[in-house]
């Protein structure tokens, strides 16, 4: 293993490590624009130049590999001078766009200017005029003036998605990023280019002008778009999710996530059911406990537990499902479980999974396999045959096509009791005798198990909207109202019960970048 001295610190690193990584291990930041750990190394921005003893030229730290006995200085006068020169050069044509640029606040150019340059430009030239607000793809906008031509986006499309849409056209200070003729940046991962863009050249159309990034608070969470469970930074401002940003996890999603997944945050805000409803009348939770308990007792007494269907959803977290099982078996006394959840969708061989439910694996673990659960089709059949008198449903998603869904909704009319715990207003919620609002994954914490079987915890970002509550709290409340209390007050008590010997959970590693 080669030994290398960086700024006087001697450190031993693995063979083949680049100077930039070695410096990071030694605790020194080397500024860089074009280098990205997941992409190939073009060494074109020249920001990471460092001084290597014995070389009269400064070396790009991102590209040069360490050799034994190398003596490197990342802070010498020559390096500082080079850094200032590079920044001055990059900024020559950079527009005065910070006020209108979404990147301001997480912009590499801003950070490095303040950290490594902080002096005025000596150049007095007219700035180059280029294309602005160019719709380079359906999800991404391009601003040619801001672009510093680091080619991260080009390499992303070549190496990660393999779709090869982007390239550089023109030369010198006219150079711009463009798509190949007749194409646009339209792949399933296109917004990742906006993430990796160190400046504000590529910006997400969805997040455009929505919120300044320095106002955002970030919470570690998991995407609920599919069973892959990509790790995300859930970024929110004033109790609203503003965007998802992928969080580095080499086992699950690396640095990336899909465009469709990014937009699933909207579900957490659109058309929410915010207050408990009893046949269309708003209630408070205190009244809900009594009303529900009354109705459940009557139905259980009249029809018995055997005719009650309990629909569990792979949309819910493990904790919710665990308490659902406890509630159904111990409090209601039914084991008549049906499996809900969204229908399958598209998939690819990278991140997108066909199963659009984030926690099917977790559900399977809680219920000891999916074999005991009846399917949604079976539910429809049973309903239409009239063998069910009451229905208790978690979440309003069912894997039906539109015809089946219509039939299902019609069949609901003959039920004595239909209780729905759901996030959203829907035709189902309108039919429910009791519709109880639950909160999104941003408003509570819990665990999802992704398709690879990895347990992934997500954290609460902000307080529940309206009067919504997590599923598991609704179950504990109702159990108390039914005089068979499930004694859980905090989510960690549920987790302790579920995972008696706490498994080593995959706490997402911090991204290297």
């Amino acid at each position, binding site marked *: 293993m080669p030994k290398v001295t960086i700024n006087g610190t001697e450190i031993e690193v693995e063979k083949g490590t680049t100077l930039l990584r070695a410096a990071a291990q030694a605790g020194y930041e080397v500024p860089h624009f074009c280098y990205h750990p997941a992409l190939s190394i073009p060494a074109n921005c020249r920001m990471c130049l460092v001084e290597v003893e014995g070389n009269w030229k400064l070396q790009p730290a991102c590209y040069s590999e360490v050799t034994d006995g190398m003596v490197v200085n990342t802070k010498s006068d020559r390096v500082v001078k080079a850094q200032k020169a590079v920044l001055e050069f990059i900024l020559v044509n950079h*527009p*005065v*766009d*910070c*006020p*209108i640029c979404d990147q*301001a606040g997480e912009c590499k150019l801003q950070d490095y200017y303040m950290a490594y340059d902080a002096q005025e430009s000596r150049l007095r030239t007219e*700035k180059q*005029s280029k294309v*602005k*607000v160019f719709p380079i793809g359906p999800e991404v906008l391009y601003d040619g003036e801001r672009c510093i031509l680091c080619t991260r986006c080009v390499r992303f499309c070549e190496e990660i998605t393999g779709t090869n849409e982007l390239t550089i056209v023109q030369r010198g200070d006219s150079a711009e990023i463009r798509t190949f003729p007749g194409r646009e940046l339209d792949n399933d991962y296109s917004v990742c280019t906006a993430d990796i863009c160190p400046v504000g050249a590529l910006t997400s159309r969805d997040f*455009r*002008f*929505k919120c*300044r990034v*320095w*106002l955002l608070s970030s919470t570690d969470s998991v995407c609920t778009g599919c069973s892959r469970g990509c790790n995300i930074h859930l970024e929110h401002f004033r109790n609203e999710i503003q965007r998802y940003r992928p969080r580095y996890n080499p086992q699950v999603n690396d640095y990336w996530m899909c465009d469709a997944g990014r937009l699933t945050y909207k579900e957490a805000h659109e058309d929410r059911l915010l207050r408990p409803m009893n046949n269309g009348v708003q209630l408070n939770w205190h009244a809900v406990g009594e009303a529900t308990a009354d109705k459940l007792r009557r139905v259980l007494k009249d029809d018995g537990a055997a005719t009650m269907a309990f629909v569990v959803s792979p949309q819910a977290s493990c904790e919710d499902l665990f308490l659902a099982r406890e509630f159904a078996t111990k409090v209601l006394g039914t084991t008549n479980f049906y499996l809900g959840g969204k229908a399958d969708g598209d998939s690819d061989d990278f991140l997108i999974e066909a199963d659009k439910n984030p926690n099917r694996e977790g559900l399977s673990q809680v219920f000891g396999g999916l074999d005991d659960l009846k399917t949604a089709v079976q539910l429809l059949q049973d309903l239409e045959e009239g063998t069910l008198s009451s229905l208790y449903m978690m979440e309003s998603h069912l894997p039906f096509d539109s015809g089946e869904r219509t039939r299902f909704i019609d069949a609901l009319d003959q039920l004595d009791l239909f209780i729905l715990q759901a996030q959203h207003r829907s035709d189902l919620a309108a039919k429910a005798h009791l519709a109880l609002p639950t909160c999104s994954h941003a408003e509570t914490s819990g665990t999802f198990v992704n398709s690879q079987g990895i347990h992934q915890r997500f954290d609460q970002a902000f307080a529940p909207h309206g009067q919504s509550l997590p599923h598991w709290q609704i179950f504990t409340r109702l159990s108390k109202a039914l005089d068979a209390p499930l004694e859980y007050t905090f989510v960690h008590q549920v987790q302790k019960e579920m995972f008696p010997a706490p498994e080593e959970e995959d706490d997402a590693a911090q991204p290297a970048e």
Partner: protein
Amino acid sequence: MGNVTVKNVDRIKQTLWEKSYIPEILRGLSVTTSHFFRNLNPNKEKRTIFTREYPEVITEYPERYRGLHRLMLRDDGQVRCVACMCCSTICPADCIHIEAGEHDDPTIEKYPTVFVIDELRCIVCGLCVEACPCDAIRMDSGRHIPPSLERDEAFFDRDLLMELGGLSEAKQGGQR
């Protein structure tokens, strides 16, 4: 270099005459009566009245006076603000609410669709003016925040603030 000395204050010793109250009472009375009669002077110019009769006589505020906000305009009368949120970020009272929207003109790109200042919350510190990178918000309207009966009346929205504003002469590199 400065010369700093410590000196004792003179603690006066009263004379017997002064102890009889009379001379000092007369001295005090001379001060007050001279003011009294000076202010009865029929020639109002010679009076030394210090009070400003506010609603009738409006004093000019000095040039730097920080008063009601105003939003400056571009040459074509559009709002100069680009909704960069610097002012609402720096505002210690959190009284500025801005929502940004896409402008039709790609050279402007961004403009505030909603811009509301809660003038009741505003503590008139002037940091927003300093934070504005576009010379869009100013507090030099020379007016103070008007009194209002309802809270809502103190929410100054974009159009109201623009009415107070004027053309800004500042040139900006951002717009060529």
